[in-house]
């Protein structure tokens, strides 16, 4: 009796939870195809806001700025985060491990306004002392994004390393491979799912960030979220809905594809291993 009731309750919980998570996004997408300028009144199907979006140079320039920053920041974050993940997983105790662990965890949760303000003040101080950075823009935003996204990469790499079979590395070492070769040929390919998802996560987090970028950017660089934010502050416009839909479509495709590829690789690995 209770098993069936429990099952119904769990299905209800899932339906409610996912409806809550996805209904607002679904409505946003539906109303991007609305003819009316009012986002809440349905005036017939239309793609006019997508056409308006294509003509909007502000969004286009901002999108390219954001992409450039996201690619660079994600690549730096991948290197930093992978190193950090190794350090935390493989090197049991070392001096400063507690501090290191804290600095890796804190940026995951510390409010973005603090990260943004503190980095801006660092850049201003550095400019005053060394004359670098001469102006704030793409470079400063990239550094800021690389810093906090590296911590997300570290979490993923560390988790994957924890599940990695050390016997493979030891076998390679026994067969005479040098440590660097083992790292390059055995360990890194073995944790590639974490590297791929880490890069993608860093990339989308960078693409998505408004607060940190607003602090550390200058007049020369406006990122896409900054451009969207300045329109949203004025009011709700269907053009933003269209932009959001395009953004969602791209992210959903990339993430779904990556998830599918990694699941397939995981299955193959398990299939081959046993």
């Amino acid at each position, binding site marked *: 009796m209770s098993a069936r009731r429990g099952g119904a309750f*769990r299905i209800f*919980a899932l339906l*409610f*939870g996912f409806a809550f*998570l*996805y209904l607002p*996004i679904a*409505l*946003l997408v539906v109303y991007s195809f609305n003819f009316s300028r009012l986002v*809440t*009144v349905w005036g017939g199907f239309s793609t006019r806001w997508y056409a308006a979006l294509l003509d909007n140079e502000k969004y286009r320039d901002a999108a390219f700025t954001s992409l450039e920053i996201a690619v660079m920041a994600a690549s730096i974050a991948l*290197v930093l*985060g992978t*190193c*950090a993940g190794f*350090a935390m997983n*493989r*090197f049991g105790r070392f001096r400063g491990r507690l501090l*290191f*662990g*804290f*600095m*890796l*965890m804190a*940026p995951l*949760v*510390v*409010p*973005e*306004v*603090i990260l943004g*303000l*503190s980095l801006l*003040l*660092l850049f201003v101080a550095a400019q005053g002392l060394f004359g670098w950075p001469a102006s704030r823009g793409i470079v400063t935003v990239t550094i*800021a994004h690389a*810093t906090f996204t590296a911590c997300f990469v570290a*979490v993923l790499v*560390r988790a994957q390393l924890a599940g990695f079979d050390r016997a493979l*590395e030891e076998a390679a070492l026994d067969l005479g491979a040098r*440590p*660097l070769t083992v*790292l390059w040929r055995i360990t890194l390919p073995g944790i590639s799912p974490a590297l791929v998802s880490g890069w993608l996560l860093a990339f*989308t987090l960078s693409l*998505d960030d*408004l*607060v940190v970028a*607003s*602090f550390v950017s200058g007049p020369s660089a406006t990122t896409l*979220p900054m451009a*969207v*934010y300045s329109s949203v502050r004025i009011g*709700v416009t269907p053009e*933003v809905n269209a932009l*959001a839909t395009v*953004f*969602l479509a791209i*992210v*959903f495709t990339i993430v779904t594809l990556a*998830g599918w590829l990694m699941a397939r690789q995981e299955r193959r690995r398990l299939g081959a291993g046993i």
Partner: protein
Amino acid sequence: MIGIGSGLRRALIGLPFAWLLLFFLLPLAIVAAISFAESADRIPPFSLTWTLANYCTLAQGCLRVYLSSLGLAAMATLLCLLIGYPVAFAIARAPGVWRQLLLFLVMLPFWTSFLIRVYAWIAILQPSGLVNRLLLAIGVIETPLPLLYNGFSVTLGLVYSYLPFMILPLYGSLSRLDESLVEAAADLGARPRRVFRDVILPLSLPGVAAGCLLVFIPAVGEFVIPDLLGGPGTLMIGKMLWQEFFDNVDWPAAAAIAMALVAVLTLPLLIAQRFLEREGAA
């Protein structure tokens, strides 16, 4: 250490360590220094002095804002727990194939724009929005309800945005739960409610704690949500810091607000590190 030479080892630790010292810890120290400075009409807009004036102003004027931020974040954390626990529980009990897919669906909104997800609620909650039009159409209400720009909309926005952060750690500890303990309790005659209260819930507490901290800490300093969904009555610290910095160009005041926020969050942060360390080790 097996497999890794000491030079390589030094590089692997040193590179991220130095980067984080330079771009995370040092900036915080600079914020601390500037929080004692004085606002001035120059570039950069402050002069370094050692004054407590910023903190005095803060203590006099902003205590209410801190309390309301903590209150809203606590409320949102509690609601996330109430909504997230059943979802995480259901995912942990789902058949294997479904489990990965459901987890993926929980994570998916996290990969998409935060700004856009908050923005979506404006169209839903505004006086001419979908909820109000629906309620007016069925005749439940006669005038639109004030759903936007108040504590309700801010709490809703926080819950909506941070729910995945609650579900994931909860799922982590619920999926590791040893099924034989649940069966043993049931075999010994415990009713489902009692099994939950005495076995499942206590064993999932580390996940509960981790989830609550992952929601609460960033929520306290949230800016986008109170800015887009909040009103004059729901000022939060993150927004106040933003206003001091961008609108009033008072950098020392913003730095003092940030330091007070760091002080409030240090204890939860240290607890969070312990819990996440344990989760990571498991």
